[in-house]
């Protein structure tokens, strides 16, 4: 008996495709609208787990050290992400402070920690508690992780301030730069189908 290949529908135009296996490191695209249907990634789980753990360590360093300092006539003012959030809050910009806190601290932290929570047990062939709901939540929260935009924000603020005072980059800035690539790698290296297929169900 020939095993039928599972059907997959394009998220952007709804066209049905047979999910044929694709060669390693390549992408299956929708033949009508060109959307990415799925990609095949080698050692997806291992690489992503390693990246998420590295990301968590970098994240802690980033948030406990200042990423920028301003010097003028003997005065030094340092900043971490949290001090910026606090200052906005003190100025009465509560909603804005919350938005910055969520998109640059809370969402990335939950995303990295959640990845480790889901992937580590799977690696040991165990099913993490509440896995489907957790992984769905991680997919949502990942969309609100704007760290790479924050990085550009840092560069913009550095240039803005450079004319009026001496801007000194801190350790956290370099850490931040690496973290962005690690976080991008965490998403790019994971084939979510591997996770979902662990749950067993397949179509028909």
């Amino acid at each position, binding site marked *: 008996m020939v095993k039928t290949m599972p059907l997959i529908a394009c998220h952007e135009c709804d066209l049905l495709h047979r999910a044929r296996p694709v060669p390693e490191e390549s992408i299956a695209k929708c033949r009508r609208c060109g959307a990415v249907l799925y990609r095949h990634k080698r050692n997806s789980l291992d690489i992503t787990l390693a990246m998420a753990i590295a990301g968590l360590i970098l994240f802690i360093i980033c948030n406990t050290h200042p990423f920028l300092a301003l010097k003028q006539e003997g005065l030094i003012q340092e900043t971490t992400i949290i001090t910026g959030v606090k200052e906005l809050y003190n100025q009465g910009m509560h909603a804005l402070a919350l938005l910055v806190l969520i998109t640059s601290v809370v969402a990335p932290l939950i995303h990295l920690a959640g990845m480790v929570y889901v992937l580590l047990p799977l690696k040991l062939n165990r099913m993490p508690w509440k896995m489907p709901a957790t992984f769905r939540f991680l997919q949502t929260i990942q969309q609100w992780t704007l760290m790479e935009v924050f990085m550009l924000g840092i560069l913009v603020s550095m240039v803005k301030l450079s*004319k009026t005072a001496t801007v000194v980059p801190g350790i956290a800035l370099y850490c931040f730069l690496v973290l962005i690539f690690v976080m991008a790698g965490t998403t790019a290296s994971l084939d979510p189908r591997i996770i979902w297929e662990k749950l067993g169900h397949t179509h028909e």
Partner: protein
Amino acid sequence: MNNLSLTAAKAALMNCPRCDLLSKYKHSQPIKHAVCPRCGAAVHLRKPNSINRTWALIIAAAIFYIPANIFPITFVTSLGKVQSDTIISGVIYFINTGMWPIALVIFTASIVVPLLKLLVLSFLLVSIQRKSSWRPGDRTHLFRITEAVGRWSMVDIYALTIVVALLKLGFFATVEAGPAAVYFAAVVVITMLAAKVFDPRLTWDAMESENE
């Protein structure tokens, strides 16, 4: 049959937005409670009430776009004088002081991108409502770009957060966030939500009905 030219909806299958599992659409079942059997996400043939929801968010964002551009985004206090800046006056300031790259980044991220996003989404909605069959592939691609680019509009909010944290009492100037910052952040978040509730599959549904 390798060359399927059937949509999931035509085959009465609902595509799970999260795990790609196709599940049977049953008419008897209240649509609101359909849940993916594998991952538990809510599943629909099409995103519910997509056109109306997207319009509502576009209109809300367009309304907030006005105060975001009229009100000051920063108050700079220096030597007892308070200077307020709007998004545009900030851009002009950077042009005048020769900081072209910054002017360009802020102008693109804060003014052009949100406006283009609203125009593109409106255009996509109108073309769907008129059952247009004009270049559906390009329209889908346009949506893809719009969705990906929106987040970068937050750049000035982050730059502001950092400047506010660094320029505090004791320095040559102190900086405070103005009301426009809140309106502007609302525009960015609302347009991001608008892209989420928009269903690009509707673009192709018009083509389907025409082929019949």
